[in-house]
């Protein structure tokens, strides 16, 4: 490319650069403000994104821990030791007497036997 042709490109670029340098201060201020806004918005959204990235695994871990805790906690359940489906109403805290209506009727039928058994076992224990 010869010199006169190159001159056009040089001149065009010089004018373009000079025009950018001599930009109206009002426009320059608006551009600065636009740049700061763009950076602030992007930082805000990236912060929210990062927070979400942190919160998701933490939430998942908390949920898993809760489920694990629930599964491992001792809960009173009816066992197969009473196949007849008849439940003995026993208060867990032992503060209330057993509910007569819900109790095994055979318990009341053999009260003498259970009394003898209790007395017998107490005397054996004291020996």
């Amino acid at each position: 490319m010869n010199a006169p042709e190159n001159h056009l490109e040089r001149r065009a670029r010089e004018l373009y650069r000079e025009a950018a340098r001599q930009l109206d201060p009002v426009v320059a201020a608006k551009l600065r403000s636009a740049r700061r806004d763009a950076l602030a918005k992007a930082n805000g959204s990236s912060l929210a994104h990062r927070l979400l990235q942190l919160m998701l695994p933490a939430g998942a871990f908390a949920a898993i821990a809760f489920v694990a805790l629930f599964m491992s906690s001792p809960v009173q359940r009816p066992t197969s030791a009473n196949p007849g489906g008849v439940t003995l109403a026993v208060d867990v805290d032992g503060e209330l007497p057993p509910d007569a209506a819900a109790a095994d009727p055979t318990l009341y039928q053999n009260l003498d036997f259970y009394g003898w058994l209790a007395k017998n076992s107490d005397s054996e224990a004291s020996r």
Partner: protein
Amino acid sequence: MESHDGRADEPDEDGMNTAVSALDTDLLAADVRATPASMNAFLAQVERRAFRMAELNLGHREDALDAVQDAMLRLVKHYSDKPAQEWTPLFWGILRRRIVDLQRRRKVRSIMVGWLGGRDEDGEDLPAWEPADTGPGPLERLNDAQSYADMAAAVKLLPQRQREAFMLRVLEGLDVAETAQAMGCSEGSVKTHLSRALQRLRDLLEEWR
């Protein structure tokens, strides 16, 4: 993007590429860009030129500001994690697309205004949608205001793709690969468009010789 000069988007002149590639070693040699330290530094470095480029394309200050602001926001939002060396072609590519979008939108608006009777007696579009720019014109502040105005007028006469190639390659100083990336075309197309743009500008700016 389609070719606005109605020609194929591939090079068709063998000697053209050799002539244009001389820019690499000659014109652009003294203008090596340093890698920006941060996104803020990069945007501060290019924002004024970006405004000038948008203004040259759109011919309207507020639209140019919108285009630059949007390009900055998109670059920061989507490409901050990219290597700093890639920011230059990415930014100019985003700005170019934004300019094209605004030009299309303006064209649609112009058609709408035409339908609503917004034409003068000569059939020219009335700029009813554009507020008058009453601020101090930047051209008045330039020592070479007339030369810049002549160049701007000549550049506006170029077809879209030639104008983009000239602005990115010559005014902004991107290399061929970066210009191709920003324009979304092949390097050969960039050389073709640029060669034609320079040829046209030499004719239009005869007094510069």
